Protein backbone atom coordinates (compact mmCIF):
# COMPACT_ATOMS: atom_id res chain seq x y z
CA UNK A 1 0.00 0.00 0.00
CA UNK A 2 1.30 3.46 -0.44
CA UNK A 3 0.97 7.18 -0.42
CA UNK A 4 -1.55 9.22 -2.41
CA UNK A 5 -0.81 9.65 -6.10
CA UNK A 6 2.20 7.38 -5.96
CA UNK A 7 1.03 4.92 -8.53
CA UNK A 8 -1.52 2.56 -6.98
CA UNK A 9 -4.40 3.77 -9.14
CA UNK A 10 -2.16 3.61 -12.17
CA UNK A 11 -1.31 0.05 -11.27
CA UNK A 12 -5.01 -0.86 -11.11
CA UNK A 13 -5.61 0.91 -14.43
CA UNK A 14 -2.76 -1.07 -15.97
CA UNK A 15 -4.17 -4.36 -14.69
CA UNK A 16 -7.57 -3.44 -16.17
CA UNK A 17 -5.92 -2.38 -19.45
CA UNK A 18 -7.40 1.06 -19.08
CA UNK A 19 -3.94 2.48 -19.58
CA UNK A 20 -1.08 1.22 -21.73
CA UNK A 21 2.32 0.42 -20.25
CA UNK A 22 5.22 2.58 -21.35
CA UNK A 23 7.81 0.02 -20.22
CA UNK A 24 7.87 -3.59 -19.00
CA UNK A 25 5.25 -6.34 -19.12
CA UNK A 26 1.98 -7.15 -17.35
CA UNK A 27 1.47 -10.78 -16.52
CA UNK A 28 -1.80 -11.93 -14.93
CA UNK A 29 -2.27 -15.58 -13.93
CA UNK A 30 0.73 -16.45 -16.05
CA UNK A 31 -0.68 -14.71 -19.10
CA UNK A 32 1.10 -11.78 -20.69
CA UNK A 33 -1.47 -9.05 -21.33
CA UNK A 34 0.96 -6.28 -22.24
CA UNK A 35 -0.10 -6.18 -25.85
CA UNK A 36 -3.63 -7.54 -25.48
CA UNK A 37 -5.85 -6.60 -28.43
CA UNK A 38 -8.59 -4.06 -27.51
CA UNK A 39 -11.12 -6.63 -28.66
CA UNK A 40 -9.91 -9.03 -25.94
CA UNK A 41 -9.95 -6.48 -23.11
CA UNK A 42 -13.57 -7.15 -22.05
CA UNK A 43 -12.72 -10.83 -21.60
CA UNK A 44 -9.74 -9.94 -19.41
CA UNK A 45 -11.96 -7.72 -17.25
CA UNK A 46 -14.48 -10.53 -16.87
CA UNK A 47 -11.84 -12.82 -15.42
CA UNK A 48 -11.61 -10.57 -12.38
CA UNK A 49 -14.12 -8.75 -10.23
CA UNK A 50 -13.53 -5.04 -9.86
CA UNK A 51 -14.61 -2.73 -7.03
CA UNK A 52 -14.10 1.04 -7.16
CA UNK A 53 -14.04 3.83 -4.61
CA UNK A 54 -17.10 5.46 -6.25
CA UNK A 55 -19.02 2.14 -6.53
CA UNK A 56 -19.89 2.65 -10.25
CA UNK A 57 -23.35 1.10 -10.17
CA UNK A 58 -25.81 1.58 -13.03
CA UNK A 59 -28.17 4.23 -11.62
CA UNK A 60 -31.33 3.13 -13.41
CA UNK A 61 -31.05 -0.53 -12.56
CA UNK A 62 -32.10 -2.13 -9.29
CA UNK A 63 -29.64 -3.88 -6.99
CA UNK A 64 -30.68 -7.20 -8.48
CA UNK A 65 -30.33 -5.93 -12.07
CA UNK A 66 -26.92 -4.43 -11.37
CA UNK A 67 -25.61 -7.78 -10.20
CA UNK A 68 -27.44 -9.69 -12.93
CA UNK A 69 -25.92 -7.35 -15.53
CA UNK A 70 -22.47 -8.83 -14.97
CA UNK A 71 -23.96 -12.25 -15.68
CA UNK A 72 -25.82 -11.15 -18.83
CA UNK A 73 -22.49 -9.89 -20.14
CA UNK A 74 -20.95 -13.37 -19.90
CA UNK A 75 -24.10 -14.81 -21.51
CA UNK A 76 -25.17 -16.80 -18.47
CA UNK A 77 -28.47 -18.66 -18.81
CA UNK A 78 -31.54 -17.06 -17.17
CA UNK A 79 -31.81 -20.11 -14.93
CA UNK A 80 -28.24 -19.70 -13.73
CA UNK A 81 -28.81 -15.96 -13.18
CA UNK A 82 -31.96 -16.58 -11.13
CA UNK A 83 -30.02 -18.96 -8.89
CA UNK A 84 -26.72 -17.14 -8.61
CA UNK A 85 -27.79 -13.51 -8.03
CA UNK A 86 -29.84 -14.10 -4.83
CA UNK A 87 -27.02 -16.26 -3.52
CA UNK A 88 -24.43 -13.51 -3.90
CA UNK A 89 -26.83 -10.88 -2.56
CA UNK A 90 -27.33 -12.93 0.59
CA UNK A 91 -23.55 -13.32 0.90
CA UNK A 92 -23.17 -9.52 1.06
CA UNK A 93 -26.29 -9.24 3.22
CA UNK A 94 -28.53 -7.37 0.79
CA UNK A 95 -31.25 -9.94 0.08
CA UNK A 96 -33.93 -7.59 1.37
CA UNK A 97 -32.81 -4.66 -0.82
CA UNK A 98 -32.77 -6.46 -4.18
CA UNK A 99 -35.51 -4.28 -5.65
CA UNK A 100 -34.07 -0.93 -4.54
CA UNK A 101 -32.13 1.48 -6.72
CA UNK A 102 -28.54 2.59 -5.93
CA UNK A 103 -29.61 6.11 -4.91
CA UNK A 104 -31.88 4.62 -2.24
CA UNK A 105 -28.94 2.90 -0.55
CA UNK A 106 -26.22 4.08 1.84
CA UNK A 107 -22.61 4.20 0.67
CA UNK A 108 -21.75 0.98 2.43
CA UNK A 109 -24.72 -0.79 0.89
CA UNK A 110 -23.80 0.47 -2.56
CA UNK A 111 -20.27 -0.84 -2.12
CA UNK A 112 -21.69 -4.21 -1.09
CA UNK A 113 -23.73 -4.26 -4.30
CA UNK A 114 -20.53 -3.53 -6.23
CA UNK A 115 -18.86 -6.36 -4.38
CA UNK A 116 -21.73 -8.71 -5.19
CA UNK A 117 -21.40 -7.72 -8.84
CA UNK A 118 -17.66 -8.38 -8.72
CA UNK A 119 -18.23 -11.80 -7.16
CA UNK A 120 -21.19 -13.07 -9.12
CA UNK A 121 -19.17 -14.69 -11.92
CA UNK A 122 -16.82 -16.45 -9.48
CA UNK A 123 -13.61 -14.69 -10.53
CA UNK A 124 -10.24 -15.95 -9.34
CA UNK A 125 -9.27 -12.42 -8.40
CA UNK A 126 -10.97 -9.32 -6.99
CA UNK A 127 -9.40 -5.93 -7.74
CA UNK A 128 -10.42 -3.23 -5.27
CA UNK A 129 -9.34 0.37 -5.84
CA UNK A 130 -9.78 2.31 -2.56
CA UNK A 131 -13.00 0.41 -1.80
CA UNK A 132 -13.39 2.10 1.57
CA UNK A 133 -12.35 5.58 0.44
CA UNK A 134 -15.87 7.00 0.45
CA UNK A 135 -17.10 5.19 3.57
CA UNK A 136 -17.10 5.98 7.28
CA UNK A 137 -14.76 3.82 9.41
CA UNK A 138 -17.45 1.46 10.71
CA UNK A 139 -18.88 0.78 7.27
CA UNK A 140 -15.36 0.44 5.93
CA UNK A 141 -14.77 -2.43 8.36
CA UNK A 142 -17.95 -4.18 7.18
CA UNK A 143 -16.58 -4.12 3.66
CA UNK A 144 -13.13 -5.24 4.82
CA UNK A 145 -14.50 -8.21 6.72
CA UNK A 146 -16.50 -9.16 3.63
CA UNK A 147 -13.34 -8.94 1.50
CA UNK A 148 -11.54 -11.03 4.12
CA UNK A 149 -14.25 -13.66 3.99
CA UNK A 150 -14.08 -13.72 0.19
CA UNK A 151 -10.32 -14.12 0.45
CA UNK A 152 -10.63 -17.00 2.89
CA UNK A 153 -12.89 -18.77 0.36
CA UNK A 154 -9.97 -18.85 -2.05
CA UNK A 155 -10.27 -15.68 -4.10
CA UNK A 156 -7.22 -13.44 -4.45
CA UNK A 157 -8.01 -9.90 -3.35
CA UNK A 158 -5.78 -7.11 -4.64
CA UNK A 159 -6.64 -3.88 -2.88
CA UNK A 160 -5.17 -0.43 -3.27
CA UNK A 161 -5.54 1.79 -0.23
CA UNK A 162 -3.83 4.43 1.82
CA UNK A 163 -5.92 3.73 4.95
CA UNK A 164 -3.33 3.05 7.65
CA UNK A 165 -5.65 1.40 10.23
CA UNK A 166 -7.00 -1.05 7.67
CA UNK A 167 -3.56 -2.12 6.54
CA UNK A 168 -2.34 -2.44 10.14
CA UNK A 169 -5.31 -4.53 11.25
CA UNK A 170 -5.60 -6.87 8.29
CA UNK A 171 -2.04 -8.19 8.59
CA UNK A 172 -1.94 -9.31 4.99
CA UNK A 173 0.76 -9.15 2.37
CA UNK A 174 1.67 -5.50 1.86
CA UNK A 175 3.30 -4.10 -1.26
CA UNK A 176 4.33 -0.46 -0.90
CA UNK A 177 4.61 1.65 -4.02
CA UNK A 178 6.33 5.00 -3.96
CA UNK A 179 6.60 7.17 -7.03
CA UNK A 180 5.77 4.20 -9.21
CA UNK A 181 8.39 1.93 -7.68
CA UNK A 182 7.84 -1.05 -5.35
CA UNK A 183 9.76 -0.15 -2.22
CA UNK A 184 8.52 -2.96 0.05
CA UNK A 185 6.85 -6.39 -0.16
CA UNK A 186 6.02 -7.90 3.28
CA UNK A 187 4.27 -11.26 3.80
CA UNK A 188 2.38 -10.01 6.86
CA UNK A 189 2.97 -6.30 7.13
CA UNK A 190 1.55 -3.14 8.58
CA UNK A 191 1.36 0.32 7.09
CA UNK A 192 4.60 1.65 8.51
CA UNK A 193 6.67 -1.45 9.15
CA UNK A 194 10.12 -1.24 7.69
CA UNK A 195 10.25 2.51 7.97
Amino acid at each position, binding site marked *: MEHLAHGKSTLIKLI*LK*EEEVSRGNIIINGKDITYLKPRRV*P*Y*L*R*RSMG*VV*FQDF*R*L*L*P*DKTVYENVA*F*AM*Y*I*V*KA*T*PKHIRRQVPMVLSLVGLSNKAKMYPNELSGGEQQRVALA*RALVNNPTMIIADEPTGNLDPETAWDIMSLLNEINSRGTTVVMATHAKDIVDNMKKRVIEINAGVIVRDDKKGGYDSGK
Partner: protein
Amino acid sequence: MGSNYLIREGIKNVFKNKKATMISLITMICAMFLFGTFFAIGENVNSVLEQVQKSQGMEVFIQNEATDEQTSELEMKIKALDGINTVTFKSKQEALDLMKENLKDNQDLLEGYEGEKNIFPASFIVTLTDLSLATEIEAKIETMENVKKITSNNDTINTLMKIANGIKIAIGAISVILLMISITIIANTIRLTVHARRKEISIMKYVGATNHFIRWPFIIEGIIIGVLAAGITILIVGAMYDFVIQAIEQSNILQTMGVTLLQFPEIVNLIAIAYVILGIGVGMIGSSISMKKYLEV
Protein backbone atom coordinates in the same frame (compact mmCIF):
# COMPACT_ATOMS: atom_id res chain seq x y z
CA MET B 1 -31.03 -15.51 -24.92
CA GLY B 2 -28.30 -12.91 -25.05
CA SER B 3 -30.04 -11.11 -27.88
CA ASN B 4 -33.35 -11.20 -25.98
CA TYR B 5 -31.76 -9.29 -23.15
CA LEU B 6 -30.31 -6.70 -25.56
CA ILE B 7 -33.67 -6.18 -27.29
CA ARG B 8 -35.45 -5.81 -23.95
CA GLU B 9 -32.84 -3.28 -22.83
CA GLY B 10 -33.34 -1.33 -26.08
CA ILE B 11 -37.11 -1.22 -25.60
CA LYS B 12 -36.66 -0.16 -21.96
CA ASN B 13 -34.36 2.66 -23.07
CA VAL B 14 -37.06 4.08 -25.35
CA PHE B 15 -39.41 4.57 -22.41
CA LYS B 16 -36.78 5.33 -19.80
CA ASN B 17 -35.38 8.42 -21.54
CA LYS B 18 -38.71 9.99 -22.45
CA LYS B 19 -37.22 13.42 -23.09
CA ALA B 20 -34.45 12.16 -25.37
CA THR B 21 -36.95 9.88 -27.15
CA MET B 22 -39.28 12.83 -27.76
CA ILE B 23 -36.46 15.02 -29.10
CA SER B 24 -35.20 12.30 -31.44
CA LEU B 25 -38.73 11.48 -32.53
CA ILE B 26 -39.65 15.09 -33.34
CA THR B 27 -36.36 15.72 -35.15
CA MET B 28 -36.80 12.60 -37.21
CA ILE B 29 -40.42 13.43 -38.04
CA CYS B 30 -39.42 16.93 -39.21
CA ALA B 31 -36.61 15.59 -41.40
CA MET B 32 -38.79 12.81 -42.78
CA PHE B 33 -41.64 15.24 -43.42
CA LEU B 34 -39.40 17.48 -45.54
CA PHE B 35 -38.01 14.47 -47.33
CA GLY B 36 -41.50 13.04 -47.92
CA THR B 37 -42.85 16.34 -49.22
CA PHE B 38 -40.09 16.60 -51.79
CA PHE B 39 -40.43 12.97 -52.66
CA ALA B 40 -44.18 13.41 -53.29
CA ILE B 41 -43.62 16.54 -55.38
CA GLY B 42 -40.91 14.77 -57.35
CA GLU B 43 -43.06 11.72 -58.01
CA ASN B 44 -45.92 13.90 -59.25
CA VAL B 45 -43.72 16.01 -61.49
CA ASN B 46 -42.33 12.83 -63.00
CA SER B 47 -45.78 11.38 -63.45
CA VAL B 48 -47.15 14.55 -65.11
CA LEU B 49 -44.14 14.76 -67.42
CA GLU B 50 -44.57 11.15 -68.38
CA GLN B 51 -48.21 11.74 -69.23
CA VAL B 52 -47.31 14.77 -71.34
CA GLN B 53 -44.56 12.80 -73.05
CA LYS B 54 -46.93 10.01 -73.90
CA SER B 55 -49.33 12.40 -75.63
CA GLN B 56 -46.50 13.65 -77.84
CA GLY B 57 -45.64 11.74 -80.95
CA MET B 58 -45.43 11.75 -84.72
CA GLU B 59 -47.75 11.52 -87.69
CA VAL B 60 -46.88 8.87 -90.26
CA PHE B 61 -48.49 9.62 -93.63
CA ILE B 62 -49.44 6.68 -95.79
CA GLN B 63 -48.91 6.45 -99.56
CA ASN B 64 -52.17 7.01 -101.45
CA GLU B 65 -51.64 3.81 -103.47
CA ALA B 66 -51.48 1.64 -100.37
CA THR B 67 -54.24 -0.95 -100.12
CA ASP B 68 -56.17 -1.56 -96.91
CA GLU B 69 -54.13 -4.70 -96.36
CA GLN B 70 -50.85 -2.88 -96.81
CA THR B 71 -52.08 -0.19 -94.41
CA SER B 72 -52.93 -2.64 -91.66
CA GLU B 73 -49.63 -4.43 -92.30
CA LEU B 74 -47.83 -1.13 -91.73
CA GLU B 75 -49.82 -0.60 -88.54
CA MET B 76 -48.74 -4.02 -87.26
CA LYS B 77 -45.11 -3.26 -88.06
CA ILE B 78 -45.18 0.08 -86.23
CA LYS B 79 -46.89 -1.46 -83.23
CA ALA B 80 -44.21 -4.13 -83.08
CA LEU B 81 -41.49 -1.51 -82.49
CA ASP B 82 -40.11 -0.92 -78.98
CA GLY B 83 -41.27 2.21 -77.20
CA ILE B 84 -44.61 2.62 -79.01
CA ASN B 85 -47.48 3.76 -76.80
CA THR B 86 -50.48 4.05 -79.17
CA VAL B 87 -51.04 3.92 -82.92
CA THR B 88 -54.25 5.62 -84.13
CA PHE B 89 -55.44 5.49 -87.73
CA LYS B 90 -56.63 8.73 -89.32
CA SER B 91 -58.48 8.12 -92.60
CA LYS B 92 -58.42 10.44 -95.62
CA GLN B 93 -61.94 11.59 -94.75
CA GLU B 94 -60.95 12.37 -91.17
CA ALA B 95 -57.96 14.33 -92.43
CA LEU B 96 -60.22 16.35 -94.67
CA ASP B 97 -62.75 16.98 -91.89
CA LEU B 98 -59.99 18.10 -89.60
CA MET B 99 -58.68 20.52 -92.18
CA LYS B 100 -62.19 21.87 -92.75
CA GLU B 101 -62.55 22.43 -89.06
CA ASN B 102 -59.27 24.28 -88.97
CA LEU B 103 -60.27 26.50 -91.86
CA LYS B 104 -63.59 27.34 -90.23
CA ASP B 105 -65.08 30.19 -92.31
CA ASN B 106 -62.98 29.42 -95.38
CA GLN B 107 -64.22 25.88 -95.78
CA ASP B 108 -65.31 26.57 -99.34
CA LEU B 109 -61.66 26.48 -100.34
CA LEU B 110 -61.82 22.74 -100.01
CA GLU B 111 -64.88 22.25 -102.19
CA GLY B 112 -64.22 19.79 -104.94
CA TYR B 113 -61.80 17.78 -102.93
CA GLU B 114 -64.47 15.52 -101.48
CA GLY B 115 -64.60 11.75 -101.95
CA GLU B 116 -62.48 10.41 -104.81
CA LYS B 117 -60.73 13.71 -105.21
CA ASN B 118 -59.58 13.91 -101.60
CA ILE B 119 -55.93 14.97 -101.73
CA PHE B 120 -55.30 14.46 -98.02
CA PRO B 121 -53.39 11.31 -97.21
CA ALA B 122 -54.42 8.85 -94.52
CA SER B 123 -52.02 8.63 -91.58
CA PHE B 124 -51.16 7.01 -88.28
CA ILE B 125 -50.83 9.14 -85.16
CA VAL B 126 -48.06 7.41 -83.20
CA THR B 127 -47.39 8.24 -79.54
CA LEU B 128 -44.38 6.97 -77.61
CA THR B 129 -43.79 5.62 -74.12
CA ASP B 130 -40.34 7.14 -74.03
CA LEU B 131 -39.59 10.34 -75.88
CA SER B 132 -35.86 9.75 -75.93
CA LEU B 133 -36.52 7.01 -78.52
CA ALA B 134 -38.25 9.45 -80.92
CA THR B 135 -35.41 9.86 -83.44
CA GLU B 136 -34.62 6.16 -83.49
CA ILE B 137 -38.25 5.15 -84.04
CA GLU B 138 -38.73 7.79 -86.70
CA ALA B 139 -35.75 6.41 -88.64
CA LYS B 140 -37.13 2.88 -88.44
CA ILE B 141 -40.60 3.84 -89.64
CA GLU B 142 -39.15 5.85 -92.54
CA THR B 143 -37.65 2.69 -94.02
CA MET B 144 -40.99 0.86 -93.98
CA GLU B 145 -43.02 0.38 -97.17
CA ASN B 146 -45.90 2.67 -98.06
CA VAL B 147 -44.71 5.46 -95.79
CA LYS B 148 -45.03 8.78 -97.57
CA LYS B 149 -43.48 11.00 -94.97
CA ILE B 150 -43.29 11.58 -91.23
CA THR B 151 -43.87 14.78 -89.36
CA SER B 152 -42.95 15.14 -85.74
CA ASN B 153 -42.75 18.08 -83.39
CA ASN B 154 -39.12 17.56 -82.56
CA ASP B 155 -38.70 20.96 -80.95
CA THR B 156 -41.50 20.36 -78.48
CA ILE B 157 -40.12 16.93 -77.72
CA ASN B 158 -36.62 18.21 -77.10
CA THR B 159 -37.79 21.05 -74.88
CA LEU B 160 -39.92 18.64 -72.87
CA MET B 161 -36.99 16.29 -72.46
CA LYS B 162 -34.80 19.11 -71.21
CA ILE B 163 -37.41 20.27 -68.69
CA ALA B 164 -37.97 16.72 -67.48
CA ASN B 165 -34.26 16.08 -66.97
CA GLY B 166 -33.76 19.43 -65.25
CA ILE B 167 -36.57 18.80 -62.80
CA LYS B 168 -35.39 15.25 -62.12
CA ILE B 169 -31.85 16.46 -61.35
CA ALA B 170 -33.11 19.31 -59.14
CA ILE B 171 -35.43 17.05 -57.13
CA GLY B 172 -32.69 14.43 -56.84
CA ALA B 173 -30.18 16.99 -55.57
CA ILE B 174 -32.64 18.46 -53.05
CA SER B 175 -33.49 14.95 -51.79
CA VAL B 176 -29.82 14.10 -51.30
CA ILE B 177 -29.17 17.37 -49.43
CA LEU B 178 -32.23 16.80 -47.23
CA LEU B 179 -31.12 13.25 -46.53
CA MET B 180 -27.68 14.44 -45.47
CA ILE B 181 -29.16 17.14 -43.25
CA SER B 182 -31.48 14.57 -41.65
CA ILE B 183 -28.63 12.15 -40.93
CA THR B 184 -26.53 14.95 -39.41
CA ILE B 185 -29.34 16.21 -37.18
CA ILE B 186 -30.31 12.73 -36.04
CA ALA B 187 -26.72 11.62 -35.45
CA ASN B 188 -26.29 14.72 -33.29
CA THR B 189 -29.43 14.00 -31.31
CA ILE B 190 -28.24 10.46 -30.69
CA ARG B 191 -24.81 11.79 -29.73
CA LEU B 192 -26.49 13.89 -27.02
CA THR B 193 -28.34 10.83 -25.71
CA VAL B 194 -25.15 8.80 -25.67
CA HIS B 195 -23.24 11.65 -24.05
CA ALA B 196 -25.84 11.83 -21.29
CA ARG B 197 -25.23 8.15 -20.65
CA ARG B 198 -21.45 8.10 -21.02
CA LYS B 199 -21.00 7.20 -17.34
CA GLU B 200 -23.29 4.22 -17.73
CA ILE B 201 -21.34 3.12 -20.79
CA SER B 202 -18.00 3.37 -19.01
CA ILE B 203 -19.33 1.33 -16.07
CA MET B 204 -20.47 -1.38 -18.47
CA LYS B 205 -17.01 -1.40 -20.00
CA TYR B 206 -15.35 -1.80 -16.58
CA VAL B 207 -17.51 -4.78 -15.77
CA GLY B 208 -16.28 -6.41 -18.98
CA ALA B 209 -19.06 -5.75 -21.48
CA THR B 210 -18.03 -5.95 -25.13
CA ASN B 211 -18.70 -2.96 -27.41
CA HIS B 212 -21.20 -5.12 -29.23
CA PHE B 213 -23.08 -5.73 -25.98
CA ILE B 214 -23.21 -2.02 -25.13
CA ARG B 215 -24.04 -0.87 -28.64
CA TRP B 216 -27.02 -3.06 -29.47
CA PRO B 217 -29.53 -1.63 -26.97
CA PHE B 218 -28.75 1.83 -28.39
CA ILE B 219 -29.12 0.60 -31.95
CA ILE B 220 -32.41 -1.11 -31.14
CA GLU B 221 -33.56 2.08 -29.44
CA GLY B 222 -32.62 3.97 -32.62
CA ILE B 223 -34.50 1.51 -34.80
CA ILE B 224 -37.65 1.66 -32.65
CA ILE B 225 -37.63 5.48 -32.71
CA GLY B 226 -36.95 5.42 -36.46
CA VAL B 227 -39.85 3.10 -37.22
CA LEU B 228 -42.14 5.07 -34.88
CA ALA B 229 -41.17 8.32 -36.61
CA ALA B 230 -41.74 6.70 -40.01
CA GLY B 231 -45.26 5.61 -39.01
CA ILE B 232 -46.25 9.01 -37.62
CA THR B 233 -44.78 10.89 -40.61
CA ILE B 234 -46.66 8.70 -43.10
CA LEU B 235 -49.94 9.62 -41.39
CA ILE B 236 -49.08 13.34 -41.43
CA VAL B 237 -47.84 13.34 -45.04
CA GLY B 238 -50.89 11.28 -46.10
CA ALA B 239 -53.34 13.76 -44.58
CA MET B 240 -51.49 16.77 -46.04
CA TYR B 241 -51.18 15.10 -49.41
CA ASP B 242 -54.90 14.39 -49.80
CA PHE B 243 -55.68 17.95 -48.74
CA VAL B 244 -53.29 19.54 -51.26
CA ILE B 245 -54.26 17.19 -54.10
CA GLN B 246 -57.94 17.98 -53.63
CA ALA B 247 -57.23 21.71 -53.68
CA ILE B 248 -55.23 21.42 -56.91
CA GLU B 249 -57.79 19.20 -58.60
CA GLN B 250 -60.58 21.66 -57.85
CA SER B 251 -58.71 24.44 -59.65
CA ASN B 252 -59.08 22.79 -63.10
CA ILE B 253 -55.49 23.56 -64.17
CA LEU B 254 -54.78 19.91 -64.67
CA GLN B 255 -57.83 19.16 -66.81
CA THR B 256 -56.77 21.81 -69.30
CA MET B 257 -53.32 20.22 -69.42
CA GLY B 258 -54.92 16.80 -69.82
CA VAL B 259 -52.98 15.20 -66.95
CA THR B 260 -53.85 13.80 -63.53
CA LEU B 261 -51.93 13.74 -60.26
CA LEU B 262 -51.01 10.61 -58.33
CA GLN B 263 -53.29 9.54 -55.51
CA PHE B 264 -51.65 8.88 -52.12
CA PRO B 265 -52.12 5.08 -52.26
CA GLU B 266 -50.05 5.10 -55.47
CA ILE B 267 -46.99 6.52 -53.73
CA VAL B 268 -47.53 5.38 -50.13
CA ASN B 269 -45.61 2.14 -50.67
CA LEU B 270 -42.55 3.92 -52.00
CA ILE B 271 -42.66 6.50 -49.21
CA ALA B 272 -43.16 3.81 -46.57
CA ILE B 273 -40.21 1.78 -47.85
CA ALA B 274 -38.03 4.91 -48.04
CA TYR B 275 -39.04 5.89 -44.50
CA VAL B 276 -38.47 2.50 -42.93
CA ILE B 277 -35.06 2.21 -44.60
CA LEU B 278 -34.31 5.80 -43.58
CA GLY B 279 -35.52 5.24 -40.02
CA ILE B 280 -33.69 1.97 -39.46
CA GLY B 281 -30.60 3.09 -41.39
CA VAL B 282 -30.27 6.45 -39.70
CA GLY B 283 -31.04 4.95 -36.29
CA MET B 284 -28.39 2.28 -36.75
CA ILE B 285 -25.71 4.36 -38.43
CA GLY B 286 -26.38 7.32 -36.13
CA SER B 287 -26.10 5.17 -33.00
CA SER B 288 -22.91 3.48 -34.13
CA ILE B 289 -21.21 6.70 -35.20
CA SER B 290 -22.13 8.61 -32.07
CA MET B 291 -21.11 5.78 -29.76
CA LYS B 292 -17.66 5.26 -31.19
CA LYS B 293 -16.05 7.93 -29.03
CA TYR B 294 -17.48 6.59 -25.77
CA LEU B 295 -16.58 2.99 -26.37
CA GLU B 296 -12.86 3.60 -26.16
CA VAL B 297 -12.42 3.12 -22.41
